[in-house]
């Protein structure tokens, strides 16, 4: 750990990538992630790595595909419409079991939408997006220090499971500044070699990286092996934070920027006697179904709050079933909910016991 510096989210994520041993970055300008690309253009060459401003997001993701196949830690970043363009390549990365870190600094949609923060890309991130039976680890930090830690973790998970990993933030986290103490950098030469990497068929049989298998039995077998890997990820890599849930009767489900705002709501609510807690998924896939299931047995309400029309709430409802009520509160179009705005929603589900002056 070094000194604490004040740094913007986009810059911090880029720096974390370089510190994780990433030595190639390929990107295309799109707001609100431009600073990430710009940081890489200045610092990646200094670290001895490759930087290319690609002709498009599609070009960038396939440069990552090639760079990953050649054995290096590689990264790209974009914002919502650009991630839509990358989805073909993400499917190919998954289909070839290639590690890659992709950052989505999400904005308002659909279509061109706007450049304000939003969480409308949850489905795209967690339910496939691209074609075929694949999954992608999705990490959703709520602060900039956490974004740096999770970016470094993203590279480890990508290499451990040979899979693309998405770091999902939004315009707020991309643009705001916070003090960050970075982890010590990883020396890429110390990372384990990848046996399948395209390094030249010297003293070994050739390596072929492909997702093309005409024989249905062969493709089925390869897909099933990948599904086994996904089951391992689900068993081992679920991450979440519980905040003030111990005695809670009502719990907010929120991730990223909204979870950060909701923490303030929890404090405000507790000041007026409402036993409010927060369950914050850190991995959106694998989703923390079990913690939500456990909570649903002892709380009355789980209120999902998102900057979307209601996407993660589907996973919350899947976990909770009918054991608790699962209302939803969302803001759209780049509107960011406020702590008091969320509190107003919370109050709708709180009953007051006038005799004892308690709420439950």
């Amino acid at each position: 750990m070094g000194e604490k510096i004040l740094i913007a989210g986009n810059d911090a994520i880029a720096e974390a990538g370089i510190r994780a041993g990433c030595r190639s970055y390929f990107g295309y300008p799109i707001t609100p992630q431009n600073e990430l690309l710009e940081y890489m253009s200045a610092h990646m060459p200094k670290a001895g790595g490759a930087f290319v401003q690609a002709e498009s997001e599609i070009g960038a993701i396939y440069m990552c595909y090639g760079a990953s196949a050649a054995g290096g830690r590689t990264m790209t970043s974009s914002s919502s419409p650009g991630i839509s363009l990358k989805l073909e390549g993400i499917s190919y990365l998954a289909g070839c079991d290639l590690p890659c870190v992709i950052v989505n600094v999400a904005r308002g949609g659909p279509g061109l939408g706007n450049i304000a923060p939003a969480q409308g890309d949850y489905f795209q991130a967690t339910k496939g997006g691209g074609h075929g039976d694949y999954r992608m680890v999705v990490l959703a930090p709520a602060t900039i220090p956490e974004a740096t830690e999770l970016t470094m973790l993203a590279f480890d998970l990508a290499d451990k499971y040979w899979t693309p990993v998405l770091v999902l933030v939004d315009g707020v986290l991309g643009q705001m500044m916070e003090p960050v103490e970075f982890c010590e950098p990883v020396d890429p030469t110390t990372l384990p070699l990848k046996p399948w990497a395209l390094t030249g068929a010297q003293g070994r049989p050739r390596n072929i990286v492909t997702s093309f298998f005409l024989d249905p039995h062969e493709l089925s077998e390869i897909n099933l092996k990948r599904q086994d890997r996904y089951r391992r990820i689900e068993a081992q890599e679920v991450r979440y934070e519980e905040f003030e849930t111990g005695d809670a009767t009502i719990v907010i489900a929120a991730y990223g920027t909204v979870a950060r705002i909701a923490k303030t709501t929890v404090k405000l609510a507790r000041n007026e006697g409402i036993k409010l807690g927060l369950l914050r998924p850190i991995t959106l896939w694998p989703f923390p179904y079990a913690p939500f299931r456990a909570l649903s047995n002892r709380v009355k309400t789980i209120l999902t709050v998102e900057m979307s029309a209601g996407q993660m709430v589907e996973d919350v409802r899947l976990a909770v079933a009918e054991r608790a009520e699962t209302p939803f509160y969302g803001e759209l179009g780049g509107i960011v909910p406020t702590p008091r705005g969320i509190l107003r929603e919370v109050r709708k589900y709180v009953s007051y016991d006038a005799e004892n002056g308690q709420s439950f």
Partner: protein
Amino acid sequence: MSVMTPKMVKVFERPRSLADIEFTYCPGCHHGLITRIIAQVIDELGIQERTVVVGPVGCSVFVYQWFRCDGIQSAHGRACAVATGIKRVNPDLIVFTYQGDGDLAAIGTAESIHAANRGENITVIFINNQIYGMTGGQMAPTTLIGQWATSCPEGRDAGLAGYPIRFAEIVAQLDAPVYVTRQSLYDQKRIRATSRAIKKAFQYQVEGKGYSLVEILANCPTSWHMKPVESNRWIADEVVKVFPLGDLVDRG
């Protein structure tokens, strides 16, 4: 009377870099010939152990199977971006793409032009047979005016579908490429010229000179509904009028 032992000299053999796997191409198709020429060049330059093949989507989708080299499949059109990623991470590798006209000059136009414009130190082998062979003979960006294809049943109409795109000429007007050439295979002389062009393109990459494009006018007897001999004659008589042969750029 002394007995003379005739000395056997091997004058022809399978290139070492060509894998012993049957091609999936139709009889009379030029793809197999081009694959063999590339393998021969890889042997002659002694680069088999550091060459990476980037495959396309189309008839040559299995191209990486036929070389005793590392290989990677690319999505349709993206081969030049994939090659860029590989080469930037490991510049010691010799990276070439093998792409058809639909792959390189339609769906992959952006990736193909920008890799050329950045002067990526890669070799692009561009197979221009004016047709989408694998999907059953649809119109390509290079299909000749009036030429029949399954998606232009009245023949290509310039008013509806524009004109055959001359990709080598487009790339040749960029500043970065070191070698841009168009070759064909319709007779022995052209085959030898194509072999020399492919060797030069790889040689330039080995020497670190930069981007090369070798466009090859190839046939498709199946989708053209011609016998192989007829298809060669068609290239010699008609195709070369639209796609003139020869070097467009040689800055080596």
